[in-house]
């Protein structure tokens, strides 16, 4: 195996763009949620559940969480590219991160839509 520096993967723009788009989605959601909490603060467990029981709220929360995980993936890979220089270790860590983010996504669907079964 030659010890030559290899670059030229011809990707990167999409991730950079996704990082920005997901950041905007998260900011919009957080502002929106903060406004809702200020206008009508939920006072007990039942009112919290009512707040998250509407379909659009669940979709918005899901969009937020997917943005968060996608954003985390781009950021975590950036950190690994900066600091972890052994390709094998970097690949292993990247796979572990992808797997956990996929699990988090499934888990968040479960949390957001499981309430429906309990409450409707």
């Amino acid at each position, binding site marked *: 195996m030659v010890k030559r*520096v290899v*670059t*030229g*993967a*011809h*990707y*990167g*723009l*999409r*991730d*950079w*763009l996704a990082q920005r788009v997901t950041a905007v989605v998260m900011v919009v959601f957080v502002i929106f949620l903060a406004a809702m909490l200020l206008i009508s603060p939920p006072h007990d467990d039942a009112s919290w559940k009512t707040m998250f029981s509407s379909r659009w709220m669940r979709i918005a929360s899901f969009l937020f969480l997917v943005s968060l995980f996608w954003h985390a993936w781009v950021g975590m890979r*950036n950190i690994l*590219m*900066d*600091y972890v*220089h052994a390709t094998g270790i970097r690949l292993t860590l990247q796979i572990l991160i992808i797997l956990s983010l996929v699990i988090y996504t499934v888990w968040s669907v479960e949390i957001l839509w499981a309430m429906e079964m309990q409450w409707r």
Partner: protein
Amino acid sequence: MRFSIYRFDPDKDAKPYMQDYDIVLEPADKMLLDALVRIKSVDDSLSLRRSCREGVCGSDGMNINGRNGLACITPVAGLKEPVELRPLPGLPVIRDLIVDMTQFFNQYHSIKPYLINNDPPPETERLQSPEERAELDGLYECILCACCSTACPSFWWNPDKFVGPAGLLQAYRFLADSRDQATAERLDNLEDPYRLFRCHSIMNCVDVCPKGLNPTSAIGKIKDMMVKRTV
């Protein structure tokens, strides 16, 4: 005036060390480089690069009290004592304040820092409108002193793969040139998670540039061009 200067001679020293100097400056010694020349007249073993002594050649880039800059255009008056001088960070030290710039120039060469135009040369010159020429302002002034790239953590971690702020500023200088015809190839060359996208826009480069240039903005414009051709 008191100085504490990084010393390392690989032939003699096992490890680098800091050497203190206490020297009396003459009234004409206005800039840090004048002081260094004064120190060198006392201790000629101190090694440093310098040439034009007026901020045009980019030879005497060094780390001055923790901040990269050119010794020849840094006034001694405002410096906190003892003035701590170290070689530019992140590059291999050859001796004292002299660093090996090979990696820096390899990255510079990798962006093809010359005009690419396949048309037959016209009889006089390739004309530009004043507006087209103005696009190059803030780009062509770079003197390749390496103050920016060696202030960039992304360049410290991946100097072999990340082009660095100086190289990317020059890459945009040719992307912005109306006479250049290799825009697509240049963008292809940079579309890489390491070569371009190691830049996280922390703007250390802008902070230290002795010529007051803005590599971060140039890098942003390269990304803009990529977005335009992709989206």
